[in-house]
């Protein structure tokens, strides 16, 4: 084989079409359908770009991953940068996240968002960073990608999809659309793998209340919760 090709292959910068990298179960997303499509789960480090309308379940999709990663890197930090609204700690706590190792950075200027993202990624003391930032340039993403590799951290970028958005140099790009039983999703870009066709991620196992069974056309009153203090 050509020595340059071999060198690139050894550095894991080149992959061959017939090769399918099987990642370990530790990265499981918590959703078996998504795991199957991703051959294991989310990457262990790098940038994951998630295109989704706001409020359809894009953050809930990441919840099992966040809990798993937090358990694995117990002293590391989970960081939310520039969330569009107040993050509800009750929901995080309910899902089993340890809030002591969770930090929210609330800043509005794009420059500060990118700066703090980069600092967190390369620090090596954060396991996961979530950032809500709509407009990103290729050079900026490239820089974040390098920072994530340096700090062995994974960055989830949550963005609303735009028609004219350029493909960015990310490890994995997902496109999400709403679905009655969970999310409709499509892998649009993937390092070391092919993009996939659309597939459904059912989410009833975690949130049975947030799904509509196809037959159900009427309002359910089966489990009325009532708290009177």
């Amino acid at each position, binding site marked *: 084989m050509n020595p340059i090709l071999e060198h690139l292959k050894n550095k894991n910068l080149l992959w061959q079409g017939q090769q399918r990298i099987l990642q370990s179960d530790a990265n499981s997303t918590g959703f078996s359908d998504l795991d199957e499509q991703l051959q294991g789960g989310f990457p262990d480090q790098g940038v994951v770009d998630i295109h989704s309308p706001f409020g359809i379940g894009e953050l809930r999709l990441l919840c099992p991953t966040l809990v798993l990663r937090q358990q694995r890197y117990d002293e590391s930090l989970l960081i939310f940068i520039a969330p569009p609204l107040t993050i509800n*700690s009750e929901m995080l706590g309910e899902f089993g996240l340890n809030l002591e190792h969770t930090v929210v950075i609330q800043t509005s200027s794009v420059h500060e968002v990118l700066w703090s993202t980069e600092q*967190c990624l390369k620090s090596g003391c954060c396991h996961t960073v979530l950032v809500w930032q709509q407009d990103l340039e290729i050079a900026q993403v490239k820089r974040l990608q390098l920072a994530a590799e340096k700090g062995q951290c994974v960055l989830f970028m949550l963005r609303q999809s735009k028609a004219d958005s350029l493909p960015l140099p990310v490890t994995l790009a997902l496109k999400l659309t709403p679905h009655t039983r969970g999310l409709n999703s499509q892998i649009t870009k993937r390092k070391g793998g092919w993009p996939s066709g659309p597939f459904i991620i059912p989410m009833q196992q975690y949130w049975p209340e947030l799904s509509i069974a196809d037959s159900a056309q009427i309002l359910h009153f089966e489990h009325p919760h009532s708290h009177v203090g």
Partner: protein
Amino acid sequence: MQSLWLYLYFPSLQLDTLLEQMRGQGVEERAYVVVDQQANRVCQLNAFAYSAGIRLGMGLASAALLHRDLQVIAYQDDVTQGRLEDIANSLYLITSDICFFKPHGLLLRVHHMLGLYGGLKAYWQVLKNQLAEQHVHYHYATGYSPLAAEMLARVGKNCVSDDQSWLHKQVLNCVLEDCQLDNNVTNKLSRVGIKTVADLLAISLHDLAQRFDNNLATYIGRLTASLAHPMVFYHPPEYFSRYLELLYEIENTQFLLNPLQQLFRTLETFLRTRDLITHAVQLRFYQRDHPPLECQIGSQQGEYKMAVWLSLSRLKLESLQLNSPIYALNLSTNNTQVRSPERPDFFTGKQGTVSRLKLLSLLQAKLGEQALYQPRLVDDFRPELAVQAAKLAKQGNITMPLYALRPSFLLPQPCPLQKKVRLIHGPERLNTGWWDHHPVIRDYFIARTPQGQWWWVFKSPEQHWYLHGIFS
């Protein structure tokens, strides 16, 4: 034990302090003088001014005539005093008894220290090395009494000796003007033919007391060490605070880094010698025509190193708005603690370059302290009260039972529902808070918009609908 004293006389403290900021920028080629404004006399000057013919005690006008580009600085007592304290602070590390002879001198009690250092020569060597770090000019002399040492140092003897008879001879050779006596007394004495200390000491104390006031007798008694000299010895301050006057006013915050570095270096020495760290430092910028600017720089992980504090303050300075030029700086810290080294795990594969606390202080320095918070839970049914943002601090979360499904995002205020939604799940009734003037009666539902978004909506008793959260 024969008592022995060492006097250090610093003739140009203020000038030395100012010029140290500009070392290597050609200050040796310019003439600088410090002028006492009240007496209108040159009281400190650098070597270049001296070679131009300027002398101490000259009027400002004559000095200005002697050199074309004379740089004149007004004398400030507090700068001199502050610097004298710094020097005392640094000398305290090697010698125990230090006494201030304000405004320009320090007196050290030597005879107690000789046993430790093994002789006067070795002691002086250590002391000289310590003084070299301060970059100030000084004269020194020993004496068998504090006043004798002072007199010899002021005339610039620059000698260290424990030979009593030789020292006595040196004192006798001094003229009366070298004594720290009142001008009237000196004049009176010279009129009766007493010109030197030898003449003065030749006259019996009894005769002098009849002609002159008590002060002269006391002075002679102290000079000859027959009377004890009362003095208060120095104790170093527990906390660090340093004032630095700038040589010229600075408008651009980036130029502040150089003087800041000087301040942080002294802070580092202060903390390192005591094996301390600090979590926050206060910087005060004195602005011309405006009240001073205060700013606090914090480091979650306690720190003493100059480089770390400097990089943190660089971030802080980026966002600092100056109203007018800065003429002085003050750095202080009042919260120190004993350093306990962090122990990074050798065997974990993942080796971060920054520790968690360092990262947080870096972010706080740049973004401001309010930009970072930790989500927290409070045991309350009302969603807006259960969710609280806490400033970063070590606080364990309380464990509380968590109830039903809650949305990932909450709106700051519930807003009226203005969209047609389909109710999917509910109701969940909250009826609480009647005891603390914030009653809440709501029926919560989970709703889905036609666009597929999951909303958390509620109905008030007045049948009004509100949006409160989003299941993102």
